[in-house]
Structure formats: structure tokens, C-alpha cells
């Protein structure tokens, strides 16, 4: 009996120790393998990634281990870094980059990336710190453009030429259009978050993030008027939010199932529109001008290398390949837009009728990234703007409260 007990205790310990041992082994691999953290995305992006990585593996002899994080990528990544178990290379959104850069967990790759002037500079700059050091390299980007469902538009008695290019006219057009639509159809859908509207606010003379990283939502009456137009449109029933008002998961689902005529969305909707809603007929126009100024939002994603990576050399080689020699293959298969101007030229993306408006937007688009406090500032805005949309507050009150909420929280974080 005694022997059994000792044996059992010993066995338990052994199992525990060997479990520790195996985990040790995988993290300190021989150096011929790097880990890459990505989020789950469309089938075409997955295919593009896998095939480009296969080309890289063939050329360099380095194995790439893809780890797909299905949900809440930023939170999962934060946890991985906190646990000192960060992937060698990770996808990095420009809006989240300042937080990671500021915490000093990313490797400075300013001198390692080749041919930097070929990138669209605003995108590259969103991955720099205050001293101009580079911490990630853009791999693709999306910009917002205006999608028009031509079937419903013609049925309602309008032509493409009737669709205005300025926001104010567009809203009035939506008002007229709504009266000619079936029940349950929406003239135009909109998103409530500031990530989609920051460029419009800037075009209205308001930068929501001040130079010293504080929130500012109140200083421009024109910006208030812009937000008011959204609130009025929702109240009067010609602007709808796809998930709140129409009960669909995404804007592309609403657009694809003929529930709306106009949406202002990024090129990420194209794969769904082509595959899941193949019979929908649409055209793509540039995002509307606001106060006569061209505007759109740019969302870019890059590759960042972890500072504590044991395979830094291989990781940098990988990043250079994916954003250099392999960029065209990745962009072509995944259907994303290339971040290097030379590749964009080679691929003739601006001749594609669906992509043209998006590519042009890259030149004047506002990159969704603005310092370390942007998450706080955008959360406060989104929260309070919803109150304005629900008619619990006027837009002025909501913006005043949002500004205070954000700045108080920023002070608490100091």
C-alpha cells in the first residue's frame, strides 16, 4: 500500500514536470521555425496567406507556424505579451500599434526593412513612434468607399448620375429615395463608431485627438452639424444602422440581401459581395466629400516583430518577404490592396472598377491611428454618440460629455 502511494505521488510529480518540459521545448525551437499570430479572416485571405507563406518557406527554408486567433485579437495578443509568450511575428492594426509601441514590447525594425520609401507613407508612419522609429510594416489596407446597389436604385426610378457626391446632398437624396423603397428597405446604412467618421470630422474642422493626446469633440460647430445629420437621418428613418435597425450581422449582409441602396464601407465587403451575394449588382464610388473636402478612412494592418523573439533574424526576413517579394502574390490571392506603390502599379489595381475608388482613397485617406489615447477617446465617443442617436441627449450634450469622459479617463491613466 505504501509503495503504491509513493509511486502515485512520484508519478504525479513526473507528469507535472514532463508537462513543463514539453512546453519549454516548443517555445525555444531550433530557430528554423517562427510563429505568426493572425486573426481569422475570409477564405480568400486565408488562402493568400497560406500560399504566400509556402513560397517563403520554399525560398528561405524557415518554417512558419500560423496561429489563428478567432476572436478578440487585441485582447488575446495582450495576454500573450503579458505572459511573455508572444508570437515572433504578429498582425498589428495601426490603431492598436501605439499601445504596443509605447509599452516597448515590439522590436525596432527601422533599419531592417528594405525600400521604405516605396510604401504609402501615411500607412508606414502610423507604425512609427515619436522619434520616427519603425515598429511594424504595412501589409495591406482598406479604405472606405460608397457602394450603390444599382438594381434597387433603378427600380426606385433613379440613375447612377443622380447619386450626389457631397455628404449634404447625399443625405437629402437618401431622404427622397426612402419614400420610393419597399417596406424594410433602407436608403442608406451607416456605422455609429468614430472609426468610420473621423475623417468627416476632420473635414468639418475638428480633430478629435489634440496634439497633446487629449479628446476634443466640441470645438467645431460644423462637426456637430455633421453628427446631427446622422441623428436626424436615423430619427426620420432614411439612415439605418444594419445591426440595430435592420437586424443583420454586417453591412455587406444588408447590402447583399437588397435591404439597402447605399453603404459606405471598406473593400473588405467585396469578397462577401462576390461570393455570398453574387447576384447583387452594384457600383463603387469614392466616399462622399464633406464640406467640399475629399475624405475617407484608411485602415491598415502590418506585421510587427516581438522584441523578445528568439528568432528575430528569421522573423525580420519573413516580414521583409511578406511586404516585399511576396506582397504581390499575397495581394492578388487575398484580394487586399498592396501597400507598396510599385506593386499597386504592377497589379493595375486602379483599373479595377470596384477597387479604383478605394485605391484613390489611399492618397488622401485619414489613417485610423492617432496616439496612445485613441482607444479611450473612441470608446467615449461611441458610447455618448449612441446616447445622441437614441435621443437621450442632444448632440452638443453628448459630445460635451464624451469629451469630459475621455479626458477624465486619460488623466486616470497617467
Amino acid at each position, binding site marked *: *500500500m*505504501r509503495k503504491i*502511494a*509513493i509511486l*502515485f*505521488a512520484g508519478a*504525479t510529480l513526473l507528469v*507535472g514536470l514532463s508537462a513543463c518540459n514539453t512546453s519549454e521545448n516548443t517555445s525555444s525551437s531550433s530557430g528554423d521555425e517562427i510563429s505568426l499570430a493572425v486573426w481569422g479572416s475570409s477564405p480568400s485571405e486565408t488562402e493568400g496567406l497560406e500560399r504566400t507563406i509556402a513560397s517563403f518557406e520554399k525560398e528561405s527554408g524557415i518554417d512558419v507556424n500560423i496561429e489563428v486567433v478567432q476572436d*478578440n485579437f*487585441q*485582447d488575446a495578443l*495582450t*495576454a500573450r*505579451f*503579458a505572459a*511573455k509568450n508572444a508570437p515572433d511575428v504578429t498582425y498589428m492594426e495601426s490603431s492598436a500599434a501605439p*499601445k*504596443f509601441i509605447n*509599452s*516597448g*514590447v515590439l522590436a525596432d525594425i527601422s533599419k531592417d526593412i528594405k525600400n521604405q520609401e516605396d510604401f504609402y507613407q501615411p500607412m508606414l508612419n502610423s507604425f512609427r513612434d515619436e522619434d520616427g522609429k519603425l515598429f511594424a510594416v504595412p501589409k495591406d489596407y482598406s479604405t472606405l468607399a460608397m457602394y450603390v446597389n444599382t438594381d434597387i436604385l433603378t427600380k426606385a426610378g433613379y440613375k447612377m448620375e443622380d447619386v450626389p457626391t457631397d455628404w449634404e446632398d447625399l443625405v437629402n437624396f437618401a431622404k427622397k429615395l426612402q419614400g420610393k423603397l419597399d417596406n*424594410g428597405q433602407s436608403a442608406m446604412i451607416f456605422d455609429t463608431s468614430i472609426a468610420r467618421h473621423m475623417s468627416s470630422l476632420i473635414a468639418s474642422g475638428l480633430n478629435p485627438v489634440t496634439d497633446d493626446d487629449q479628446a476634443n469633440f466640441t470645438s467645431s460647430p460644423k462637426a456637430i452639424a455633421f453628427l446631427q445629420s446622422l441623428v436626424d437621418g436615423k430619427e426620420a428613418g432614411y439612415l439605418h444602422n444594419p*445591426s*440595430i*435597425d*435592420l*437586424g*443583420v450581422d454586417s453591412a455587406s449582409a444588408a447590402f447583399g440581401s437588397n435591404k439597402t441602396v447605399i453603404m459606405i464601407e471598406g473593400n473588405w465587403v467585396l469578397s462577401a459581395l462576390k461570393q455570398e451575394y453574387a447576384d447583387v449588382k452594384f457600383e463603387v464610388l469614392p466616399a462622399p466629400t464633406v464640406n467640399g473636402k475629399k475624405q475617407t478612412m484608411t485602415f491598415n494592418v502590418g506585421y510587427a516583430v516581438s522584441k523578445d523573439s528568439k528568432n528575430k533574424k528569421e522573423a525580420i526576413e519573413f516580414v521583409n518577404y511578406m511586404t516585399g517579394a511576396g506582397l504581390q502574390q499575397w495581394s492578388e490571392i487575398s484580394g487586399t490592396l498592396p501597400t507598396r506603390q510599385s506593386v499597386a502599379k504592377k497589379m493595375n489595381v486602379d483599373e479595377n472598377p470596384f477597387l479604383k475608388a478605394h485605391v484613390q482613397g489611399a492618397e488622401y485617406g485619414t489613417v485610423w491611428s492617432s496616439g496612445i489615447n485613441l*482607444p*479611450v477617446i473612441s*470608446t467615449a465617443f*461611441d*458610447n*455618448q454618440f*449612441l*446616447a445622441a*442617436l*437614441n435621443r*437621450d441627449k442632444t448632440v452638443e450634450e453628448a459630445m460635451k460629455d464624451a469629451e469630459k*469622459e475621455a479626458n*477624465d*479617463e486619460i488623466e*486616470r*491613466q497617467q
Partner: protein
Amino acid sequence: MGGKRYQNLQGYSFLMPALIIIVVFTIVPIAYAFFMMFFKVDILSGSRSFVGLSNFEKLFQDPKFWASFENTFKYVLVVVPIQTIIAMALASILNSRIKFNRTFLTIMFIPTLTSSSAMTLIFMWLFNNNGLVVNMIGNLFGTKILFLSNPDLALTVIMIMNIFSTVPHFMIVYLSGLQDVPDSLYEAASIDGANRFKQFLYVTVPQLMPISFYVVTMGLVGCFQIFDQAFILSNGTGGPQNSTLTFSLYIYQLAFTSNDMGRATALAFILGLIIFTVTFIVNKLLKADKVNG
């Protein structure tokens, strides 16, 4: 065979697997949290600096803290009594040998078996502004009630959902308790002239007191810790207008969105303290110790 030492060794060797897990995943994190709440912690880089009690000070000045405080208490005060009463009533109905009670029991139990995230998605589908419930109310009464975007109602949807999914579990617990109530008590009560309702009130309810203590305590702990439903319903934001921001959700936001582990652990400590106090009061009120003998 060997003495006490051998027996101890044997005992601990059996406990070992559980002990290791509890120490590594519960005791050590709790101790670490006690330590961290006095620091400003950057969770990403792991750097920290001592700030004393300023994390608590910041929390008490934070309107979001008070919003989560209010939401969580509102939630607990509504959900716990309702789920306890419904569970008890349903259990005694099922116990009274009505027809098909087994079938009924099986169907009733399905919501408890469904994962809470799947349940949340179903409810979001039912209650969204173009969903079944909203359209039905719209057709019947001609007014559109926007459950998910109305800050006064979003929390109510979560309350309904939670009651719906926890009642069957507690009902089963009550049902097992009801089997232990001796029939002679009901016979005596009916001889004394008590009708069915009075029998329920004066025999069933007091006899079920120890079970009620368990149900209320587990309900309280579960409700104070509500996270997943609020997280999914609001997409992690606690909106609309902080109306679904609960303690646990705010802890998560502080740790992962605000990158401030110090304040997150301070809030977790406050939540732990609240649960401890409330459970203690409930224990005193229900006199669980005495009933248990």
C-alpha cells in the same frame, strides 16, 4: 502498517492533482492580485510602480465604476429573487405528479444545457430591432420597442435571459429537496385544514430553507459575476450608454483595453469584498446554519 505519517502521505498523494491545480490557478493568482492592486501595472511590458491606494481612489471617482456598480446591483436585486421563486414554484408543480412531468422536465432543462454565449446570440436575434419579439410587439400594439439599443431595456434582456437559463438548474435542485420532505407533514397540515397554497407556504417553503440558502447563494455569486452575456450583447463595450457594463466586464476592460492591471485587480478585490459581505448577510438572514442543524 506505518503510522500517521504514512497516512498523511497517502492522503496528500490523492489530493495532489487537485491541490496543484488549486494552488497554481486560484491561490497564487489571488495572492498576486492582492499585491498588484497597490501598483500601476502595464500589463504588456510587465513594468510596475507602487502607487498605494490611488487605484481605489481613481475607481471611486470613475463614473463608469458607479455605472457598473448600479447595473450589477440592479441585476442582482431583480434576478436572484425572481429566479428563486420561479424555480421553487416550478419544482413544486412538477413534484405534484402532474401528467408528462418527465417530458416537461426534459424540455425545461434544455436552456441550462445551452452555452450562455449561444443563448445570448439567440436572444440577440430575438430582441434585435428587426427581430421576432420586436416585430410581434410592433404588430400587436403598434409601437416598436427597441430592446437592444435602448439603454433602459438592454439590461432587462440580459436579466430575462439569465432567469430563463438558470431557473431549470435551480428547479432540479429544489426538486431533489422536495423528495426529502416527508408526506406526513402534508397529511398533518391537510388534517389541520390547510389548503394546497397554505401547505406550500407553511410546509414546503420552511422545509426547503437549506436548499434555498444554496440557491440564493449560488444565484448571488453567479449574478455578481455576470460577464459573458453582457460582453457578447454589447460587443465588449458595455453599451448602449454603459447600461450593460457590469463589474466583471469593467474589470476586463480595465485590464485589456485600458492596459491597467492595477485598477482591474483593485476592482476585482472590491467585487470579492461585496460578494463576501452580501453572502454573509444572506447567511444571517436565512439562518442557514440553524436549519442545517
